[in-house]
């Protein structure tokens, strides 16, 4: 047996994890092999030192507290940790179905299947609903009652889901059209590029207790490493106080915060915007690379080119700043909450 391979067994021997037979063989080997004996002595002395390390005492005054609040916090943490994989799973399922529907649509359109017409009709339907809804809102709230009601979350969620669906359907429609036009241009998408997307959302809430709602939002955003970017308050035409807070949330937590916001008491509407800046981002990257290579290969002649080199530096600086600003907007999504305070009647 080579000594190198023996070193692994030497560890087991030191830890008393070898059976009797192997132990005897190892003892015999250590006696006769100087290299293994040295290694054994070295490992043994390190182990001995570590065995003598005193226990680290808990800092004085510290006490484990099992309070109701602490338990609540822990349960919330568990919930969020467990929710995250669910969100990822939902995203994967969504992508799968979206790709499937895009592919089937493309396939159908090539064959000019008459069913295609049906599909386009189904897609238009939510838009009509939405425009109807828009018309209703433009007419203003129901004038018969002056009382503003705090929306009931259970019925509201269903309503919001409908709204959400209509938005998604709209989006998928646009995606389909843009892809069709790309296909007709015979352009290909470089799949090696990671999509760069800036995500923003705005959420409206109505509440009797503004402090409670604010605390819930703060709890939710802080636990997802968000921070307040702006905070303002104003009074609307009806004399209601409105607090407007904008949070910056790490992009990976954007949907966790957004979906959890739907469960907040008084949640009324939300709007989500996604801006695809993939082309802009990689464009900037290419420009930076180009400028860097220009800078790197620049031949300096005495008295010539100093100004040119300065101009390259300035341009490079500008491009790098633009890129880092864009990266910042991609990495940190924005969620704006408009909280309207209403009085109980």
């Amino acid at each position, binding site marked *: 047996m080579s000594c190198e391979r023996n*070193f*692994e067994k030497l*560890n*087991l021997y030191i*830890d*008393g*994890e070898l059976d009797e037979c192997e132990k005897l063989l190892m003892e015999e080997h250590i006696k006769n092999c100087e290299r293994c004996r040295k290694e054994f*002595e*070295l*490992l*043994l*002395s*390190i*182990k*001995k*030192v*570590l*065995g*003598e*390390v005193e*226990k*680290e*005492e*808990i*800092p004085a005054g*510290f006490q*484990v*507290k*099992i309070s109701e609040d*602490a*338990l609540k916090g*822990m*349960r919330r943490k*568990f919930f969020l*940790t467990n929710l995250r994989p669910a969100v990822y799973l939902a995203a994967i399922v969504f992508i799968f179905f979206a790709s499937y529907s895009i592919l089937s649509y493309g396939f159908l359109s090539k064959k000019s299947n008459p069913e295609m017409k049906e599909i386009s009709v189904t897609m238009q339907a939510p838009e009509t609903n939405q425009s109807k809804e828009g018309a209703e809102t433009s007419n203003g709230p129901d004038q018969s009652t002056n009382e503003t009601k705090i929306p009931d979350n259970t019925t509201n969620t269903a309503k919001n889901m409908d709204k959400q669906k209509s938005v998604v359907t709209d989006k998928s429609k646009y995606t389909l059209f843009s892809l069709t036009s790309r296909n007709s241009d015979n352009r290909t998408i470089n799949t090696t590029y990671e999509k760069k997307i800036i995500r923003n959302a705005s959420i409206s809430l109505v509440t009797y207790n503004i402090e409670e709602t604010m605390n819930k939002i703060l709890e939710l955003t802080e636990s997802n490493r968000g921070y307040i970017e702006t905070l303002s308050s104003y009074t609307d035409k009806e004399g209601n106080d409105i607090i407007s807070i904008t949070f910056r949330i790490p992009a990976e937590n954007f949907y966790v915060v957004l979906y959890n916001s739907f469960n907040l008491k008084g949640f009324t509407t939300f709007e989500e915007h996604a801006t695809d800046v993939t082309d802009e981002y990689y464009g900037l990257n290419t420009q930076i690379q180009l400028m860097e290579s220009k800078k790197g290969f620049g031949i300096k002649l005495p008295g010539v080119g100093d100004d040119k080199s300065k101009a390259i530096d300035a341009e490079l600086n500008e491009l790098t700043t633009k890129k880092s600003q864009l990266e910042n907007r991609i990495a940190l999504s924005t969620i704006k909450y408009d909280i309207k305070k209403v009085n109980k009647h």
Partner: protein
Amino acid sequence: MSLSLEILEKAKNGDMNAFEELVREHQSYVYNIIYRMIGNKEDSMDLLQDTFLKAFIYLKKFRGESSIKTWLYKIAYNTTLDYIKRNRSKDTVYVEYIRTLEAEDIIGNRFIKEVILNEIQKLPFEYRSVLVLRDLEGMDYKEISQITNLSLGTVKSRLFRARKILKERLQKIPDFMQNIGERG
């Protein structure tokens, strides 16, 4: 029924006083293992708190398949692992051992211990954790495998790798290995 088992049974039935008793009995070694794995006192206190909160929540599910000590170690290990995953950058932070040392400390044991502990803190978590459980806590391979949820083979190879890296790093410190050898 022994006193500890009686306390455990009471705690499982939601008796807060019994659980507090359980915390008092086990908190010191749970803290020690967390501290040795992350090398940061403040975060160790937070993780100790989290470990016992989780223990309180899941105590009803504890069926006594392992000892309560191993079960608590397992929660502490998983809580620390989650923390390391969340704070990848913090994983490279290690305890500063160069502080005011007396002349006799430098030649003596204290310096040797501090240098070795510091080198352990620099190891990647997967190696550091098994080394802490084996050499500082004195657990056998089976217990380590239960706590870390790793196979026995993986525990063996990680320990071997951990000691190999540690030894190589210590050998780079001038005269250090000679000092250990003389001491041993």
